[in-house]
């Protein structure tokens, strides 16, 4: 599915060159749920940008489903992002003055073929994240957790094989964060590949595997023996905390 081989990323050039990623190699199989951890400045966001085809490595190889990403031009990368990858950001990145439905439909505008049932698909995606009754709301009228779920619905609208999330729970309270993580688990069970970047150990332990970055290199790569269950944790939250 995903295969990195000695991936390097350098910024600047000559004497001011800074190597952010120093030869990273790993594979992620289809349907895996991986957390990338590391302190700030260890290059985990840079790695995620490369995995998401937003940025290209300056050295090494990156294969995504038999596609050699490094050799692609800007347009081809855009098409790849549209077809294969769904992004979830810490800051949600919703269009402020636009209703949830239209926000979710946005990636379809850039699809090679605009589906006739675009609106139906958007409604379905919103329903799958539990926002069937918030379709006509604008981001400002939704809570942080709801906004992040709109963003997840947007990531799912093109039915991508991979969902990449950058600190998806960073701006959320505990309950909303768990709701998001519960959705990720479900997506994995549907067969999607999930990669989450986080600095939060508790969040990472929901994944099946943790990659720890340190100073631009992989410090260790280990499976999680017993991943945490977001659904169960949600159920165990005190009742008065529920909205």
């Amino acid at each position, binding site marked *: 599915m995903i295969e990195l081989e000695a991936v390097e990323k350098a910024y600047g050039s000559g004497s001011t060159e800074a190597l952010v990623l120093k030869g990273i190699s790993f594979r992620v199989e289809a349907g895996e749920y991986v957390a990338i951890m590391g302190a700030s400045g260890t290059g985990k966001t840079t790695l995620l*940008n490369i995995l*998401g085809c*937003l*940025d290209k490595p300056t050295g090494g190889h990156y294969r995504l489903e038999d596609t050699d990403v490094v050799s692609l031009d*800007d*347009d081809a990368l*855009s*098409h790849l*992002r*549209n*077809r294969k990858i769904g*992004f979830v*950001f810490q*800051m949600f*990145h919703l*269009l402020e*003055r*636009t209703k949830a439905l*239209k926000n979710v439909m*946005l*990636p379809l*505008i*850039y*699809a090679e073929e*605009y589906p006739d049932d675009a609106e139906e698909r958007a409604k379905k995606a919103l329903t799958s994240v539990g926002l069937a009754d918030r379709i006509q709301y604008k981001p400002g009228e939704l809570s942080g957790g709801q906004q992040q779920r709109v963003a997840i619905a*947007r990531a799912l609208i*093109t039915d991508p094989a991979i969902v990449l999330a950058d600190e998806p729970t960073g701006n959320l309270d505990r309950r909303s964060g768990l709701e998001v993580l519960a959705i990720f688990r479900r997506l994995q069970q549907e067969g999607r590949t999930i990669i989450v970047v986080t600095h939060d150990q508790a969040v990472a332990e929901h994944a099946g595997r943790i990659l720890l970055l340190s100073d631009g290199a992989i410090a260790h790569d280990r499976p999680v023996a017993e991943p945490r269950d977001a659904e169960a944790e949600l159920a165990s939250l005190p009742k008065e905390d529920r909205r």
Partner: protein
Amino acid sequence: MRIRRNLLLSWEILAAHKLRTLLSVMGIIIGVAAVVLIVSMGRGAEERILGRIRTMGTNLVIVRAGQVRLIAGRQRQMNTVRTLLPSDAWAIAEECPSVASAAAAIDRNMPVKWGAGSIVTRVVGMNEEGFRIRNITTPSGHPFDSQEERAARRVAVLGHTVARDLFGDADPLGLQVRIRRVPFEVIGVAAPKGVDVNGRDQDDVIFVPLRTAMRRLFNVTYIQAIYVQARDAQASKLAEEEARNLLRQRHRLRDKPDDFTIQNQVTLLETEREMSRSMALLISSVAATSLLVGGIGILAVMLISVRQRRREIGLRRAVGALRRDIRNQFLAEAGLIAGAGGVLGVTLGVCAALAMSGLGYWEAVISWPAGAVAFVFSVSLGMVFGIYPAMRAAHLEPIQALRAE
């Protein structure tokens, strides 16, 4: 097409920023409104001038005795000159090949009475030919014929204003008015002709036969004007030359200056038309400058908009937008804003033109083609000035754009 799918979303985003959008197109709105208004006013002026040409009679060349000067923008006949004679008129009609006909005329201001009413008006001595050349018709009654002219009969045709002032709604035909105590029978009332180039009411006038005027009213042997009709509009210049040469010869002027003035009315009107056109051109160029400023307004606001929407641009790139999608989006938005400004401007200009006509300040004729041109021009202007901001937006790196505050 992707661009059309996106345009609706762009429209929503622009509509959400009403004030910013409105301010950015203010220049275009004003520019377009000014263009539409000016062109409408210019067309109104043109129609008015063409109307005057029609009422004046076509192919008209006027010979006046003595020098005619422009004083405060009005034509004034200077000192009395006695050298222009009725025989000059006949000679012009007979001897000039480009002239179809010619009519002598003389006029004085005189008191005219009917019953208790008394006014001072211009009494014009003229023959039957003069009515035809000057395109004066008499819907009620008839102009005097050559018999009445030869016999110096005391008959009169009233101008529309005179008939109204003396008789009100009553029918003056067959009644007797007194011009300086001499009784005249009213045999006709002329159709109204309105105001002439000099702003003089052409209907405040009484026509009497030339011979009657010269012998019984004014007691003179000379005339003041000859109305000359050229064979056609093209010949009017030629007719003017021929009449000038003939008169110089007849008056034995040799190296002395003309003792008459020839006015070619069509030329005069064309000059006036030319003036109103160049005026319109001048104001239009000011309006065009305003459009240019409007374009710069769009440039500025689009640049700000691109900066404020970096995160949106980053997101769109992340979910698959190509660079050219972003470029096209911002180009289309610039065109959309400018187009909306164009529509508002045309509406405003048309309303202003209608208001001016409605309030009677100026006869404006709405020019829809000018509106369409102004609209298309403003859309193109928006797109041209949108190119640079759109390129800037397209060249943002997605990861940097996403991280923007």
